[in-house]
């Protein structure tokens, strides 16, 4: 299996541990990643707020790079994934829109690539039954899966999971031997989109969901998006001050947990880069 890899800005900076751990498990599982040459920022929600057509053009520019490679795209940031996926769908569906956007590009969007999130690459393209015996199953670890918003929304015409009650991350964590903790907020928003402009709003939202996960008995959270991870991990001490309560909930990328279960050396998974240390909870497995 071979993919055009679109890391996105976060995985080259604040979320390098997601990049490191994703590459590490791909190497172990014989998934080949070829980083797209000269990829540009997807624009996130902010470019759409400024100019929807420009946001679509930015996405199309990136999609067309993968098309020249003749590969499907692997996009680990849910924000990038959503932008690239929905742009590809919209441009395929609407010929006028495609013509408008293509007239701005030096290399036109053709509509023959597919955008995939690593979680669903593992679940659909690889399949969990190919994993075999795990060197270090996550037995005894109680994990709250956190999907966030745009991994499963807006719903696609070919949905990979339920938009409001997805199961993919639950299934992966169970396969890794973890005990999956159910809690209602698993697809509720972390407020990442307004984390810097309306920090108090985001802190309210992250506070609610961290508290729910904690009360449900979780020892850590598993996430699939660098914006969610930042809100839940880096801002957790501010949430604790607001709640007047200690949470101490490590927020790991699912790729890091998978790396641990696959027996990959912890030093190769970027665990030390997390703000809330996962050392104590990982010592249990």
């Amino acid at each position: 299996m071979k993919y055009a890899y679109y890391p996105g800005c976060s995985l080259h900076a604040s979320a390098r541990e997601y990049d490191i751990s994703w590459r590490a498990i791909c190497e172990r599982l014989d998934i080949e990643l070829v980083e797209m040459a000269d990829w540009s920022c997807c624009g996130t929600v902010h470019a759409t707020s400024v100019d929807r057509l420009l946001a679509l053009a930015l996405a199309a520019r990136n999609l067309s790079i993968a098309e020249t490679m003749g590969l499907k795209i692997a996009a680990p940031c849910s924000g990038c994934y959503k932008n690239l996926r929905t742009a590809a769908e919209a441009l395929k569906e609407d010929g006028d829109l495609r013509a408008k956007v293509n007239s701005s590009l030096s290399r036109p969007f053709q509509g023959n690539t597919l955008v995939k999130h690593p979680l669903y690459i593992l679940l659909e393209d690889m399949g969990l039954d190919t994993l075999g015996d795990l060197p270090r199953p996550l037995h005894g670890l109680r994990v709250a899966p956190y999907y966030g918003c745009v991994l499963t929304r807006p719903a696609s015409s070919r949905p990979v999971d339920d938009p409001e009650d997805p199961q993919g991350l639950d299934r992966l964590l169970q396969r890794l031997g973890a005990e999956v903790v159910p809690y209602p907020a698993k697809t509720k928003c972390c407020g990442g989109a307004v984390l810097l402009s309306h920090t108090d709003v985001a802190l309210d939202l992250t506070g609610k969901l961290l508290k729910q996960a904690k009360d449900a008995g979780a020892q850590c959270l598993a996430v699939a998006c660098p914006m969610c991870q930042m809100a839940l991990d880096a801002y957790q001490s501010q949430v604790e001050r607001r709640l007047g309560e200690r949470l101490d909930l490590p927020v790991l990328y699912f790729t890091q947990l998978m790396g641990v279960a696959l027996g990959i050396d912890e030093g190769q998974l970027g665990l030390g880069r997390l703000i809330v240390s996962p050392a104590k909870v990982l010592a249990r497995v």
Partner: protein
Amino acid sequence: MEPDANLPHLMASELDSRFKDEVAALIGGLDLAYCFQCGVCSGSCPTMDRMEHGPRRIMQMIRLGMAEKVLRSHDIWLCVSCYSCAARCPQGIEIAEVMAALRSLAMTKGLAKDKEATFSRVFVEVLKRYGRLYEPELLLRYYTAEASVADLLKQAGLGLRMFRKGKIALRPERIENAEELEEIAARIKGERVA
């Protein structure tokens, strides 16, 4: 159904009958008339408690032509783009996309007065300069534009912790030809005018 007592009271002369079409055109001509004001969107919205109107009333205000009230509203900037409203709308209206269209209209018309509007504008400036995000410059430009030293200081401790964890890039990454993005933006602008 009870009339909405909190709907703004405006004179007919203050209404813009073309507004709903202007919004619809931005999101691919979706017919906003499908909305029957059930309120599932507002009931599903995670930031509803911070909003003045919420998505349900905003939808009604669009249809009534309350262009300026809608475009000046902070509600559209409090939308966190979580798509819960769209996932649940019984009429299949992409309400989160409507909110995004309203934000871009507010930007174009110079009516956007919210911290998130400033953030989005500065974000795109940095994106066009490098082709990729460069957080230190984004934050500096944002806090300067908002003249918000207090907000900056509030996050200084976090910035330091992230720096120590190597989460803040010292130098910007650039794509090979960042001018390409300026050119794309210019051509897109031409498309919209055409």
